[in-house]
């Protein structure tokens, strides 16, 4: 039986999802994901081209708010959970790559 997902793919997904998984964890997950993906692939059995997708539970549209200012958090509140802060800003480790 062919695997529905390879270990390399699992490692790639872990990078995409920012999860530093160990080798054992990757092995274990690859096996489990393989089983789960095979099971969920059943969705492909019943669907046809002409069935529209449903992305939202209910067919609401056009929900807006007026362009009116509401109270903000104070900077202290905003930073209250920060692992590190400096100069009223969130201090984060150095950023190596550029934004997309």
């Amino acid at each position, binding site marked *: 039986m062919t695997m529905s997902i390879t270990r390399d793919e699992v490692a790639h997904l872990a990078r*995409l999802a920012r999860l530093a998984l160990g080798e054992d964890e990757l092995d274990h997950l690859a096996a489990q994901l393989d089983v789960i993906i095979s099971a969920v692939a059943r969705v492909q059995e019943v669907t046809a081209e002409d069935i529209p997708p449903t992305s939202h539970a209910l067919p609401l549209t056009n929900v807006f708010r007026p*362009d009116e200012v*509401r109270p903000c958090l104070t*900077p202290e509140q905003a930073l209250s959970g920060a692992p590190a802060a400096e100069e*009223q*800003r969130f*201090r*984060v480790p*150095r950023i190596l790559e550029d*934004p997309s």
Partner: protein
Amino acid sequence: MTTNATAGTSGLMPYEAAMATYEPVLGMETHIELGTATKMFCGCPTGFGAPPNSQVCPVCLGLPGSLPVTNRAAIEGIMKIGLALNCTIVEWCRFARKNYFYPDMPKNFQISQYDEPLCVDGYLDVAVDGTTYRIEIERVHMEEDTGKSLHVGGSGRIHGADYSLVDYNRAGIPLVEIVTKPIVGTRDNGPQVARAYVTELRELVRALDVSDVRMEEGSLRCDVNVSLMPLGSAEWGTRTETKNVNSLRSVERAVRHEIQRQAAVLAAGGKIVQETRHFHEETGATTSGRSKEEAQDYRYFPEPDLVPLAPERDWVERLRATLPELPAARRARVRAEWGLSDKELQDVVNAGALDLIEQTVAAGAEPAAARKWWMNELSRRATEQGVELVALPITPAAVARIQEMVAAGELNDKLARQVFEGVLAGEGTPDAVVAARGLKIVSDAGELEAIVDQVIAGNPDAAAKVRGGKVAAAGALVGAVMKATRGQADAARARQLILDKLSG
């Protein structure tokens, strides 16, 4: 041995040589921050320059549990832009999540639009050297801005920094992204067309009054895509994307640089790498950023926290009816009404004087006179002070009043310049300056005649020459009259009076 043509700015082909071999294909992606009172999905204010993290709430900080709610004014803003760009406003579309991790993005996804943009298929005409280029617009979509990082240590740039400090005040400000279709056929004019496009877009958005479109504050940001293909080829080359080109001049320079750089690489038998590049203001060069080798996988999917947008047709038509006269139409009208050449009009636009002149005309001045004051006297003073014309402390109404006094013969140009000086120095209205400085022209016929008589009597030699038919000698007498009145005489009238008296 092959040379590495990508290295350094030395690897540039002269522009003319590049143009003799290759044809550029351009693409522009422009981000415009809308000037709404509040952010895209929350009620935080959007003012520029507030203390860090003082304009944030659970929503724009991406706190667990928070949810976005769309700002109606932002949707109206983007639809106005779409309509002004001759786009179709779609009947139904959704927001999508663009997933990628970055510290300045609070949720690690950006709410954007993917395959269902709100506005599609428009165009914007721009003129370069008398040729009109139709820039086709692929899409105009709505998204949210990110926070801002301050890099600490190293050179203060992102690379080599020790750590970064993030301020989320900007996070969530409504951003409109305008994407062109590939721009072909510009040939040598590519760099100028790119610049003209951004200039025209800026004028357009400013006219719509939905953004202050200040490139220096980042409310208008530009990414420039460039690829080259051999002349006569139909197959496009690999493109690069140069990010955050943040002035009009830089747009032109970045395109030119990429054309020259890519031409050099291709001519040396190299390949263009599909990548993001950075433009450097100081050198005018671009350098390689992140290569797209490990292709980004943004895992777009419909944003489940927001319901679809389905703008009713009467809403769209109501917005269309509110659109102001757009810059191109306005320029055509003004050029006809004021009798300007293309070049003259372009100068006025470039000087940022169009609004000012139009308002001055509306306040009663003749177009030629209004243009003369703004383009000469006032432009000179603005340049001296290093400010924009519009920032000078004088209103179009004041300019119109000064011109009114000139037209009535109460001031001559020289006196008028002194009135401008007084108004700009904060001495009050034109009338107040005239009164305080005693600048009224000497127009009382008797008073002027007496002075002329004195001057003739005091300059017998010159008077004799004029009597003898040397009319040019009257100049000296006019000068003497002006000196005697400290410039406050109407020189033409004085001259006429002198000639009348000495020919009799």
